[in-house]
């Protein structure tokens, strides 16, 4: 589904990603972990097509297609979704309006008929339960005045509604208390299925107690320094990033 080959990317002339190789197949959950500044958030933004980041080398393939030249909206319509670490506020634009426009633009892309507001309303209501969201949220402005937890749940609601092939979850767990973390994680579990790929970017292991990754990658200084199964996350939690990374460096020497 997603194949990243020797990816280098920079922002404002500073290289952040220094040769990432990664492949995600349908049905797989990959966790990318790493200390602050390792480039893990950048990785998700670059895949989603953030215009501030420039790919200087390497390729990103989505379903066999090189997506480097595609704008973020084109990638989104192909089926790539980025759940933001810091969801953006859009005053005056209701959640339902945004989701309907987005959903219909994706449908148009696939030559499907647009859903009218009433049909969409039914459709979106079915999804609310996934993140235990009150229908009142639909009429509120996008993330405007939302608590941290509400913002993250809203991201997962959008994920459920837009139903992408690849979900990039950028520190979806950050800033959540344990109850909210549970709701969000369970929501993700309900959405993921054998046809979807998930890239879960996180600093902490705790979300992996709820969402079981198939693979864990440790990112350091723009490179994946170690990959393994779900047990790697536990090892990270127990030993800390420094020890793991040092041991990697040791091996390399």
């Amino acid at each position: 589904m997603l194949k990243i080959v020797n990816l280098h990317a920079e922002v404002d002339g500073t290289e952040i990603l220094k040769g990432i190789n990664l492949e995600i197949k349908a049905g797989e959950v990959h966790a990318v972990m790493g200390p602050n500044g390792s480039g893990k958030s950048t990785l998700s933004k670059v895949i989603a097509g953030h215009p501030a980041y420039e790919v200087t080398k390497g390729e990103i393939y989505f379903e066999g297609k090189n997506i480097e030249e595609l704008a973020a909206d084109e990638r989104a319509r192909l089926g790539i979704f980025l759940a933001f670490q810091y969801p953006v506020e859009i005053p005056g634009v209701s959640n339902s309006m945004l989701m309907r426009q987005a959903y219909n633009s994706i449908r148009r892309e696939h030559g499907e008929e647009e859903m009218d507001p009433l049909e969409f309303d039914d459709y979106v209501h079915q999804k609310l339960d996934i993140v235990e969201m009150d229908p009142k949220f639909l009429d509120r402005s996008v993330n405007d005045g939302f608590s941290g937890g509400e913002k993250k749940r809203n991201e997962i609601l959008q994920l459920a509604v837009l139903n992408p092939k690849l979900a990039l979850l950028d520190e979806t767990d950050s800033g959540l208390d344990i109850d909210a973390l549970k709701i969000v994680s369970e929501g993700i579990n309900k959405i993921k299925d054998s046809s979807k790929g998930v890239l879960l970017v996180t600093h902490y292991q705790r979300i992996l107690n709820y969402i079981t990754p198939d693979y864990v990658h440790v990112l350091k200084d723009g490179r994946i320094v170690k990959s393994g199964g779900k047990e790697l996350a536990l090892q990270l939690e127990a030993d800390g990033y420094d020890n793991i990374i040092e041991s990697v460096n040791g091996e390399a020497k």
Partner: protein
Amino acid sequence: MSEIDALDSVVSQPYKYGFKTEIEYDDFPRGLNEDIIKMISEKKGEPDFMLEFRLKAYRNWLKMTEPTWPNVEYPKIDYQDLVYYSAPKKKPKLDSLDEVDPAILETYEKLGIPLHEQKMMQNVAVDAVFDSVSVATTFRKKLAEVGVIFCSISEALKDYPELVKKYIGTVIPPGDNYFAALNSAVFTDGSFCYIPKGVKCPMELSTYFRINNEESGQFERTLIVAEEGASVSYLEGCTAPMFSKNQLHAAVVELVALDNAEIKYSTVQNWYSGDKNGVGGIYNFVTKRGICKGVNSKISWTQVETGSAITWKYPSVILQGDNSIGEFYSVAVTNDKMQADTGTKMIHLGKNTRSTIISKGISAGESNNSYRGLVKIGKKADGARNYSVCDSMLIGDQCGAHTFPYIESANSTASIEHEASTSKIGEDQIFYLQSRGLDEEDAVSLIINGFVKEVFKELPMEFAVEATKLLSIKLEGSVG
């Protein structure tokens, strides 16, 4: 497309109303003096009191100086170089459109304001003002059936001189300010609406102003009176051809609401704003004021300002009657080298008077957009309340947004709330929406529509759609 490019493409759509109609004119010689004023009054066959009003205003004006406090810059206007009366040569007979120059009818058609009986907009009566004169007013008979008078102010002066005399200049005295004084001296036409006691006007009333002549200024005057318990919704629209010279538009609008009356006045202003380099465009120096004279009366101004090289305009409400309500909802969009200094004044005199101010400024290109507002609470205005919100949105990094709120309260029981914010339409917001599948232009227009929503919902339905389109045309390409 970079962010700035997309912004650019939103903001720099060509002005589609910029054509000029070729017709013959009946012009006065250039310049301004008492003889010109007498000629205007004579041409219009006005009653004597009007000429006296004009001359008094002119003499006042001579002693006044052009205001320099607005946050705008423009070269000195040579008032002796303007033409103060310019009318299409074929004088229309107001009962029949057959007498109107077909070129003018075609002009309005092109502007989307058909005046022909069979094509007229449903449920909207239109007074069409072309340069200095009103060329047609639709639905007059239907309105007359319920006692509503809707005609040009020139006709009103002939047919209802006492009514005009009773109210004209009572809200905005001839010496009120420099441009109002000038207007009072030389105004050539405009609309008059009178809603009798207890009548709810059955349709929207609207005036469409068109400046066509390059050399003339447009000085129109509108007077709306709502008697006890009456209500009316009124809309004003305006466009002008693209000329490399600037045209002066100095209008005066007066509203009078008696006991329990309600006037809703909406403007969609789309004068030509000059080219990218700031050459040409309308100087829109307008005085608009309403008085809530009676108890429980209400005046609501909604304005969508998208055009003009310079806008200088503060639609205001004097809240004289107890429990009266004043509202001001504004969206001002500036792009390229446009300048706007606009806002409102809410003058609370009566008890328990309430006012709401919602101002949304959008600045793009190298434009400058200022909100200037005064909330004044008089000594006797016990329990007066005001709520103001002034939000500015910046598109790109070469534009300016400024807020000048003034508050004067002489009553300790008053409550005044003021909120202000400035935001930049951010790469982050656009990326967020793009990552949901919206293309760049849809993303930008969604953000902008969200920003102005509070104001647009106040517009009459027919015009809200129009205003939304206009906004996206105006800002097309400016966000990216």
